[in-house]
């Protein structure tokens, strides 16, 4: 890398940030935060996903069509998760008439 491209610098910074976040998520798991352990771990995972998606998968630079595909993927995932959870957790609300 004699002639440094600005992209190489960006990629390296993102990589360092990802390593630090991975170390952070491992370290925090050994501290008792109660229910926040899971929330913090998932928040860090979300930040890592955004870093990989925006910079390594170049969503920051691509055009709107690609972003719509990504959002559509997550939209269908949200539909599947929310409808399935709504079913699973509301089943006990009513008891079917027994024999």
């Amino acid at each position: 890398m004699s002639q440094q491209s600005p992209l190489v610098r960006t990629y390296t910074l993102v990589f360092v940030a990802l390593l630090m976040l991975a170390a952070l998520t491992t370290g925090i798991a050994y501290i008792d935060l109660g229910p926040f352990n899971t929330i913090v771990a998932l928040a860090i995972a979300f930040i890592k996903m955004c870093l990989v998606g925006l910079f390594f998968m170049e969503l920051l630079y691509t055009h709107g069509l690609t972003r719509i595909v990504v959002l559509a993927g997550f939209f269908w995932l949200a539909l599947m998760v929310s409808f399935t959870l709504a079913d699973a957790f509301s089943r006990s609300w009513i008891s079917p008439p027994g024999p």
Partner: protein
Amino acid sequence: MSESAAGNPLAAPPVHRASPALRHQFEELQQQYDASNFGMWVFLATEIMFFGGLFTAYIIYRSMYYSGFVAGSHGLEGGFGAAMTFILLASSFTMVMSVHAAREGKRAMLIVLLLLTIFLGIAFLGIKFTEYGHKWHEQMVPGLNFNPSVEELRGAPASAVELFMCFYFFMTGLHALHMIIGIGLLSVMTILAWRGKIRRDNYDRIEVSGLYWHFVDIIWIYLFPLLYLIGGRYK
């Protein structure tokens, strides 16, 4: 799409219209590049749903059998999980650098970086299968060899721990399968680069392989906290 290409650092390099890389169904290279990129993203959107089914089931059963999931998670070796996370992040970095090398037309660097990415992928799988071996010796493999000791159950019902181990093996197994496919894909790309078939006007195949590799990395980014770090590891 020309206006989006203007000022875009990732725009395909200007080449002659008569480039041998331009397939006849496309008008120009930028269009061909956009089409292959878009195609891979549509595939990845279906992959979100593919893994999403397992994640949805995981959410429901984790809430129903939380004690078993905590016990199973604490039975996993956190060091393995963290090591695999670092290795996979490093492989994503070498992958994005190889896409960059391909874009710049640096063949030797492309080959070295692709080989490095493959090596890191194999290292990941090596740790993964070592961990599977440990689980087999601990008799924690549901259906085939499940006979956990009392301390491994940590007071949780054996069936709940077994359910967690089912999720562990299916989720990491499906992820490992994607890693194996990714390593195969990158091996093909390395051979193509070795033969000088990757040029600045057709590097989109490296780019698209990279998208797949990063997607598999993102799945692991979620699997690590969801499988290894349930309820924290401070106990």
